[in-house]
């Protein structure tokens, strides 16, 4: 239901964040996340940063599969 893209925060200003996804830049709302800093990775949906994330899925999925 929710197209999301991970992006890197490159700037913060007045409750908004300038984010960069592979060189595509866009200002999004940073209202939902406290203490966002340049260099953080976030998940973007419909013009808002909805979660602070780690940028990479591989180590996570490997860890989940280890127990199986």
């Amino acid at each position, binding site marked *: 239901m929710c197209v999301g893209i991970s992006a890197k925060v490159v700037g913060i200003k007045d409750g908004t964040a300038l984010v960069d996804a592979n060189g595509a830049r866009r200002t999004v709302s940073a209202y939902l996340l406290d203490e966002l800093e340049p260099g953080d990775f976030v998940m973007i949906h419909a*013009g808002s940063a909805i979660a602070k994330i780690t940028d990479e899925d*591989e180590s996570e999925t490997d860890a989940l599969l280890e127990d199986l």
Partner: protein
Amino acid sequence: MNGIEKARGILENYDGPDCRIMEVCGTHTHEIFRQGIRRILSPKIHLISGPGCPVCVTPVSFIDEAIYLALEKDCTICTFGDLVRVPGSELSLQTARGRGARVRIVYSPQDAQVYAKNHPDEQVVFLSIGFETTTPSCCIAVRNAAADHTGNFMILTANKTMPAAYDAMKDSTDLFLYPGHVHAITGTKVCEDLVGQGVSGVCAGFTGRELLTALAVAVSEYQKGKPFFRNCYPRVVRPEGSPAAQAMVAEMMEPCDAQWRGIGTLPDSGMRLRPAYADFDARIRCDIPPIEGHANPGCRCGDVLRGEITPHDCPLFGKVCTPEQPVGACMVSSEGACSAWYLYGEETGGISHE
């Protein structure tokens, strides 16, 4: 590739009890097809495309309301691209545009508010659809409008929340593939609570790797025979979700009964603006009369959404109902189950049975 191969192996060779898995999220449905995941699953694993596409469950009457605002009240409609081809009782927003409706596609609700601010001579209505993931952005747009005194900005709400849908669907599936981005906002307590009622599930991300992993974890746990919940998307989903989003939405919106296309009215499954924000509520400001939508009676989107039939069991599927000429909402949204089945060739048995 190691992790992927391991997960694939688990899903291809699964030989436990038959397992129905409902993807609750349209983006999952789409990615599962795009990654060709259905083709590698053991015959004992059955994927059901559930109700998690906000476009698909938006009732006909909502489109009719939007068209009323555009054509009768001369409002400018701002919307996500997904909604413009959804058929209303008579028109879609796209065909209404041919009759003079002003319809603008926006990337975000906040952009619609900025448009309103820059066009003070227009009455601008944002079509506020979406689940918990999208609703905070809608609220932020209203907050911005209040702060900027953008008096010509309104939203037409059809926002929905998932727990009521989980409850309505829990008997149609053995476990849920929970929508990762919804739970990034709400947290995972609702999933943990469902375990207490015997309902299992995994929270999943959206890449091929993440989906394979979540499905592999799901069937492995299912085989153990006890209800469970596993968060397979912890890089995005935290147990507590986003407290800031939860607090803002609770302050600005209140639950209401909501109509889900094909499912019916689910109590307290919708969100509308609280009276303090009535100035931004298009239904109140524009005095929209009650509208009863008329869906095509042959359309069986409801049964598809409940997982009771697959799309090609519907008599309209692929014949009168296609992505170019959609009848039901599940065909119009690229996230819809019917659209995914059609576009990925499932109507002719897909690519594996040539």
